[in-house]
């Protein structure tokens, strides 16, 4: 029981990174129709930036959680204006390939600058060590990650459902033509939404900094698991992305505990099962053909 709960918390913490990043991926896809291959690279940049901020300016995790998303938002806006916007009217495959190329460049640049060995990162003291909850000893940091990302997801959900901005974004996601017909300038939201998606991927990166080895390659496998996550959740669905993110985290943690050889493969088996049973994903609506 004790062990089960520990694995569950570990899974939910790992799932937090997937959930947050997949949330960004889903929102970008919803409004821009772009599957952002570089999402893993943005996640990596978030972690690397946090490590550099700690090293040079001695900014702790608390500050990084605030500063890095802002920096990543700006970076996302630049990427969208410089590259992504030119291909929005074409087949989404072109932006997929474009962001793939960007990923190669970003990863290689970080590799050249910071090498291949991991950068060190220590979380603030308040988050170190373990905490006892109802007789179960759990790592403090994992609990924090889980609670923090749930809070972010709830916040995003509130913004999406309760505010005018959220309504516009949802309308642009679900029925862009109708939104336009009602006089909403969908195009105006494209750049900030891309920036937001990048920022939230960067945030996931910051959160994972004390948890994972910070290397240029850390986002590569992450990006591919993210794709599995959104296929499982249903790419059009924001709720689906978050739920599938936590689900995949749990599958990974329990897989590593009970069948370490197959832990990574399990995620893709889960994806294959979902495609067989519900091709549109757990929360996705059935699309016509594309």
């Amino acid at each position, binding site marked *: 029981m004790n062990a089960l709960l520990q694995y569950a918390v570990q899974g939910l913490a790992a799932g937090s990174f997937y959930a947050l990043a997949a949330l960004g991926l889903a929102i970008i896809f919803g409004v821009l129709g772009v599957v952002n291959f570089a999402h893993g690279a943005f996640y990596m940049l978030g972690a690397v930036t946090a490590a550099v901020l700690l090293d040079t300016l001695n900014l702790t995790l608390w500050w990084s959680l605030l500063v890095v998303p802002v920096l990543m938002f700006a970076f996302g806006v630049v990427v969208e204006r410089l590259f992504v916007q030119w291909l929005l009217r074409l087949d989404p495959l072109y932006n997929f390939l474009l962001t793939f190329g960007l990923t190669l460049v970003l990863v290689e640049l970080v590799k050249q600058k910071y090498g291949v060995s991991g950068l060190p990162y220590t979380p603030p003291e308040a988050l170190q060590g373990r905490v006892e909850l109802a007789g179960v000893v759990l790592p403090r940091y994992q609990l924090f990650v889980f609670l923090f990302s749930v809070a972010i997801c709830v916040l995003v959900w509130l913004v999406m459902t309760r505010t005018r901005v959220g309504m516009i974004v949802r309308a642009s996601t679900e029925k862009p033509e109708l939104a336009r017909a009602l006089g909403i300038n969908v195009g105006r939201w494209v750049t900030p939404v891309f920036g937001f998606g990048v920022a939230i991927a960067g945030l996931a990166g910051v959160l994972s900094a004390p948890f994972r080895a910070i290397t240029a390659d850390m986002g590569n496998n992450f990006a591919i698991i993210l794709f599995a996550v959104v296929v499982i959740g249903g790419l059009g669905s924001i709720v689906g992305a978050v739920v599938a993110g936590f689900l995949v985290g749990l599958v990974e943690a329990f897989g590593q505990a009970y069948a370490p050889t197959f832990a990574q493969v399990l995620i893709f088996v889960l994806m294959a099962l979902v495609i067989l049973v519900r091709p549109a994903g757990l929360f996705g609506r059935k699309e016509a*053909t594309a």
Partner: protein
Amino acid sequence: MSQSTATPAPVTEAHPVVAAANPRLRWVLLAGGLVAALALPWFVYPPVAMDIVAMALFAIALDILLGYTGLLSFGHAAFWGSSAYVTGLIATNYGVPFPVAIIGGALFAMILALPAGYLSVRRSGIYFAMVTLAFAQMVYFVGYQWSGLTGGENGLQGVPRHFFGVELVETDSFYFYYAALPILLLGMWAAWRIVHSPFGRVLVSIRDNTQRARALGYEVDKYKVVAFVLSAGLTGLAGGVFAINHGFVALTELHWSTSGEVVLMTVLGGIGTLWGGVLGATLAVLLADYLASSGFDGIDLVTGSVFVLVVLLFRRGLWGTVRHQWLAWQQRRSSRRTRSGGGTRR
């Protein structure tokens, strides 16, 4: 589908499959290509020459899906790499002539492609790319974990080159090139036959208008799966030759970066043009070889930048641009001729 932007254009702009419609030009091109393939190891270090031709078949195989069926597979490393491993294992353990081992590898790739294709074609467009990518990553992990068979991170080493009683050692690369070339050329010929067959026409119709193809009674998903398996088989031939050529199989061959590399070659050369794959592969391999020999260790920087530039500025690709200009020129010429010929069209 939820998209705020205008209706997406198909990946390849509509173009006739039989490009030049000029049989003489086609024979000239084919003869030129054959001469180039035969002469290549005189000008290029033979193992590199072999890589060029193997990569060319890899890119052509991918183009059957990307250019002629409208499906971007981002997981072809699974077939390339698994065939390389199976070829290497057969050659190492059974001492058979290398073409036999390669055929074994290609068959394995096709068997692997059957379930992968069956699952992947349930989604199309961008989803197809993501599902194939994820599937290939799964194969990568299996290769990584099953180190007893694949050698894990050390790779599979010491793959021999038996050729019907002759042992081609490393210094025989020049002869090995000519021994293996027919396999690759046969593969290319098969690809050419596939895209120009009635079956290939159905694939193009699926690419251009899936609903209409379905309405006409074609079982779209079955055609896609068959195209996927055939493409994987040709990819497997190329991967097998690659394995024997290097005498070594690394995990990189299964990695998604290999899938990306072949997509780049195809897009750089021009989607939907078999010659484009040849051109793209030649340039990519030569560039990689040049960068490696000049001691530059950031090849991804170059690959990634080329990717971005080609996608932003040069979507027709090299061969596609040449063909487009050629067709436009021919059209101008023929319309001028009709006008000066007494105005047959009123």
